[in-house]
């Protein structure tokens, strides 16, 4: 049967082309793979190979012809002995569905962009008696509990086993769980992160410790391209239950390459959850939830907080939900939204403000993605003022997102422009005085609040 040879699309962007040269003439026998013609596309001159066998019956478009639309019949292929039709059998084919199908669909962009209705924040469960422990102990207890609970959970990273952790977060785990499940890695973040993600794709539940999150940049391709996107790219077949954890943000006097906040970086990415605890209870409850979560979770700790003590529930089953902020201090005059080590700074500022008669409500976000917008918005509707505080850089930071969420959901309740307090927009300096100047202080928060209340 005679078949049309169509003008091919030879690049992702080609819509038309020029037939530079026919390499076969009418009557030639054609076999699969033969070069029929050369076509000039928008990018290059390309060879067109035959797909089917047969005889080149008729050339419909002569060489030199320009601006031939993709899918135009350019020749007719016939079988041996078959009569050659004068014209193309088919009218030019309808262009492909994915290029022309502009039938109206539900408008997903607006659906996504429109402010979604916010549910009312639920009160936090009361877990009963508490005891004072450090954040370090809380993280250690969380990992130990989950390692006991699920044999598919394992910990890997640099110095996590024999050295007992660079910051002693994994102290004692090797002794209890053995080298099969607490695994020292060479200094090779890109490789071992890829390995851990591969293992997670099979259903295992790795905890990857980065000595600091700064080193996760070596592995950020696997965190984003391999871990966060595979569920979507696989049409829901392949989840990636993995935790990437380690100290984030500035420590003290460790310079530019070891002092930066990745909150905004990772919170930007769909397919990731991003958790940033402050207290021991946050650390323990949220790390347990992160390890149990079927999705990739980036868990941002803070080195300075490791040694701080906080009350933490002693209940063996204690766990906190990802995605729920906590109102650490109630107040009627201004809402301060913050996370990680800056929660403590904000609470200190709130104490000073209280002495001046200003009651600040301090919200500890605890999770950066998904953001608990409902809790923030409910607070702003009460106080009508917003101050965001973060240690990271201001541009496109978490504060920018929080402010935008408030504008979308509670614009009419605002009595003053939101104020953003962030680390200075410079690499972290080493000198003690400069480092202090680069980081938000309680006095900055007090001044900002007094400026809008």
């Amino acid at each position, binding site marked *: 049967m005679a078949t049309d040879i169509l003008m091919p699309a030879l690049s992702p962007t080609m819509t038309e082309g020029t037939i530079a040269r026919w390499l076969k003439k009418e009557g030639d026998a054609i076999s699969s793979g033969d070069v029929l013609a050369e076509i000039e596309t928008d990018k290059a001159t390309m060879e067109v190979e035959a797909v089917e066998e047969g005889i080149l019956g008729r050339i419909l478009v002569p060489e030199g012809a320009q601006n031939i639309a993709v899918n135009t019949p350019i020749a007719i292929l016939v079988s041996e002995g078959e009569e050659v039709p004068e014209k193309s059998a088919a009218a030019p084919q309808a262009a492909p569905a994915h290029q022309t199908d502009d039938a109206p669909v539900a408008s997903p962009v607006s659906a996504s962009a429109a402010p979604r209705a916010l549910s009312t924040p639920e009160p936090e469960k009361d877990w009963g008696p508490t005891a004072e422990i450090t954040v370090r102990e809380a993280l250690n207890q969380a990992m130990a509990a989950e390692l006991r609970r699920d044999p598919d959970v394992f910990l890997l990273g640099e110095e996590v086993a024999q050295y007992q952790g660079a910051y002693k977060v994994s102290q004692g785990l090797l002794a209890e769980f053995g080298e099969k499940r607490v695994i020292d890695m060479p200094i090779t973040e890109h490789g071992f992160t890829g390995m851990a993600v591969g293992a997670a794709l099979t259903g295992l539940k790795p905890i990857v410790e980065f000595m600091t999150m700064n080193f996760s940049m070596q592995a950020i391709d696997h965190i984003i391209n391999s871990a966060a996107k595979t*569920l979507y790219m696989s049409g829901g077949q392949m989840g990636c239950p993995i935790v990437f954890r380690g100290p984030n943000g500035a420590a003290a006097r460790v310079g530019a390459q070891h002092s930066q906040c990745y909150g905004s970086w990772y919170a930007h990415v769909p397919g990731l959850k991003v958790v940033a605890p402050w207290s021991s209870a946050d650390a323990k409850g949220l790390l347990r939830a992160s390890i149990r979560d079927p999705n990739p979770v980036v868990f941002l700790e803070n080195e300075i907080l490791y040694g701080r003590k906080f009350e933490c529930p002693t209940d063996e089953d204690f766990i906190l939900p990802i995605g729920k902020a906590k109102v650490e201090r109630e107040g009627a005059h201004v809402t301060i939204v913050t996370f990680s080590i800056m929660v403590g700074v904000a609470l200190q500022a709130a104490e000073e403000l209280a002495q001046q008669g200003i009651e600040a409500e301090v919200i500890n976000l605890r999770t950066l993605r998904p953001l608990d917008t409902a809790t923030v918005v409910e607070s702003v509707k009460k106080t009508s003022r917003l101050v965001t505080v973060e240690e990271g850089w201001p541009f496109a930071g978490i504060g920018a997102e929080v402010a935008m969420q408030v504008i979308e959901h509670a614009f009419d309740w605002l009595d003053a422009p939101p104020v953003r307090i962030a680390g200075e927009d410079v690499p972290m300096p080493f000198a003690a005085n400069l480092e202090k100047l680069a980081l938000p202080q309680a006095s900055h928060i007090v001044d900002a609040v007094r400026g809008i209340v």
Partner: protein
Amino acid sequence: MQAGKDDIQKTGGNGPSLTREQFTQAFHDMLLIRRFEEKAGQLYGMGLIGGFCHLYIGQEAVVVGIQMALKDGDKLITSYRDHGQMLAAGMTPRGVMAELTGRATGYSRGKGGSMHMFSREKNFYGGHGIVGAQVALGIGLAFANKYRGTDEVSIAYFGDGAANQGQVYESFNLAALHKLPCIFVIENNLYGMGTSVERASASHEMWRNGEPWGIPGRRVDGMDIATVNEAAVEAVAHCRAGKGPYLLEMMTYRYRGHSMSDPAKYRKREEVDEIRKTRDPIEHVRQILLDAGTTQEDLKAIENDIKAVVNDSAEFAQTSPEPDAAELYTDVLLEA
């Protein structure tokens, strides 16, 4: 350096060749990939497949010969040149072609495309678009095999281009250090996109790239199915026995450009024609079968069956619906 011609290293014994039944099966499986890819190229030309599309034509003996050495549970991972691996692994031509055209019936429900397909059922872990990423992920699949105490192995396919990526060598170190059952398969088709191996790599003996870590390697004629299979059997046995990773450098050749939009001006048409004429993996097996008494009619019947299957897959891929608009928002996160 020529595809599979010179300097074939025989570090292992010559195992028994394939049986006629095996050659027949290999002929079928390789021809299915060839015809499927030709059809994909055709659909691309018609504008039905958009974006990137990297064809496997010419390299068929590599995946088919390796697949014949594997068992259920062995895990596979590769780059974006993945259609051949998927068909060899037993994924359906319909599901793969429908994904190529971005339809709801594709393996990723239209959300992955040519470069990103997966099958939990067939232990195929993708289709990865970042050159070399699949190697680190691949040792993770092997890590999981070992962690679970199985004797399953993982195959991490990558090209000569990816072989220069840093994470490949991090992966060699980790796999050797932890004795992971991973077979690294370098599909050396002589060009990383438009740059020849000679211009990209200071070492032209990639089968030796694992030597610093004690990873045994072999250079194999990747255009000869029996040789590929024999090398794969040896590598699989090594890994199953708990001896750690193995590296196979498969000397092969792609007949088409790097992707659909590559005019392949960095090599001469004569080079392609010469290999096609003298080294074609499918024609080679066709001759073996004819010499062994298989008739032209028998082979024609196989070809007709494949043509029907491929045409059916193309019809399916063109008539399946596009994904529902609501699919835009699904599969971002799993319910906790």
